[in-house]
């Protein structure tokens, strides 16, 4: 059944191989994330010019927008990993899906907090039922549902399968929610501010934004590798390769 999966991917799916692979990459990803993050913050907070309408308040987009992108990106990763886990019963896919959920929830939470902080000077209120904010809130509940369901099971692999199923239902649900909230917003004529509008963003503002997006991607990779490694050690506690690692650690 899994003929078409390239061999290296198949090998990578085995826990010990992934453990070593992730262990090698993790420090690099973290270093890159910190470096790029620092550069992006410097560029965004100090070098980029103030907005002619919003003044300095707009600078929160250098956090807000990359987190919002990540919140959706990670959900997509979780959905794909869950699908792979359900169809081929690959343990690593279960681990990746379930360990992505808390990271994604954190990014969603950051998006909501920065969004409401930004909303205060812009809209004069901490919270408004804007289509994008509302969809993001629903996304947070989806993440929390997946995490909650995963932890409700005694058997963790069974929990991962059930929560993965929920994540896939969520993938179908998110666009429907977004569409319905949009429709609802036009009905009630909520206060929506389109920040970007049709106008092109100045390069001075764009490059820190893109750099920060890269930084968050690397942070996600580093964080996921770390969480997945810990989880694999925990799940495979009785296996030989884990015992060998424990012995090596003891020798040092």
């Amino acid at each position: 059944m899994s003929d078409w999966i390239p061999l290296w991917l198949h090998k990578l799916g085995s826990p010990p191989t992934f453990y070593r692979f992730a262990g090698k990459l993790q420090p690099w990803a973290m270093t890159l994330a910190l470096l790029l993050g620092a550069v992006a913050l410097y560029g965004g907070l100090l070098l980029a010019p103030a907005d002619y309408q919003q003044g300095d308040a707009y600078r929160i987009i250098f956090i807000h927008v990359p987190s919002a992108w990540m919140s959706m990106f990670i959900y997509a990763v979780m959905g794909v990993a869950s699908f792979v886990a359900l169809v081929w019963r690959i343990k690593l896919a279960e681990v990746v899906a379930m360990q992505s959920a808390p990271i994604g929830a954190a990014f969603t939470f950051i998006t909501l907090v920065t969004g409401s902080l930004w909303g205060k000077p812009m809209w004069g209120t901490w919270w408004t039922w804007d289509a994008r904010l509302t969809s993001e809130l629903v996304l947070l509940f989806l993440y929390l549902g997946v995490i909650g369901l995963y932890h409700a099971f005694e058997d963790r692999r069974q929990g991962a399968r059930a929560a993965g199923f929920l994540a896939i239902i969520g993938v179908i649900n998110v666009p429907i929610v977004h569409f319905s909230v949009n429709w609802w917003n036009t009905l009630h004529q909520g206060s929506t501010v389109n920040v970007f509008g049709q106008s092109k963003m100045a390069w001075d503002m764009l490059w820190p934004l893109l750099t920060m997006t890269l930084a968050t991607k690397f942070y996600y990779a580093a964080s996921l590798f770390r969480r997945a490694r810990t989880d694999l050690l925990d799940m495979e506690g009785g296996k030989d390769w884990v015992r060998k690692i424990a012995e090596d650690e003891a020798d040092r």
Partner: protein
Amino acid sequence: MTATPAAAPLLEARGLSFRRQDEPVFAPMDFQLHAGELALVEGDNGSGKTTLLRMLAGLLHVGEGELRWRGAPLQRDATAGDILFLGHQLGLKADFSPRENLRVAASLHGCRDGTNAASVLARIGLRGYEDEPVRRLSAGQKKRAALARLLLLPATLWLLDEPYANLDRIGIALVNELLERHTDAGGAAMVTSHGTVSFHGGEPRRIRMHG
């Protein structure tokens, strides 16, 4: 049944095992079960008897190894009604009478020719209790009501998890008789039990389980 060669066993397991939380529940197993055969699954508490039966029934996925049915890989959709499973939970609605419970089962599975709920309940020793809610029956009577399903529903392979529990002497003899009739008619059965069981019709096959 001329299409299948006589040599093909009804059920065959090759290197069958199951993992829970990544721990193997039992060592890889190989066994064959032919039509007309009765197999007794033996083992200590926690050796995986119930797990094995639930896996054969199709409630648990096959971890490793292979299951074959009449010589071909077992496919759940094709064998669904041919395998009858009786577990610790009897599958009886407490608010229904034994008769109503049987009627629901029969409308999903169908009936053996020449049987009906009343005759089956009389044979299993529940005459006079047909319309009493299951809630009011004793543990042994509930067990009998569940066993009545074996008589009513058409199936080739019976998977019985602790069928003797809660039964009195007469009940145990009744179960043995049911098993004998079933195997004589070309059916097969796998039975788990702690206690020693004696059959009139020769020595049953024994499958030992090791945790």
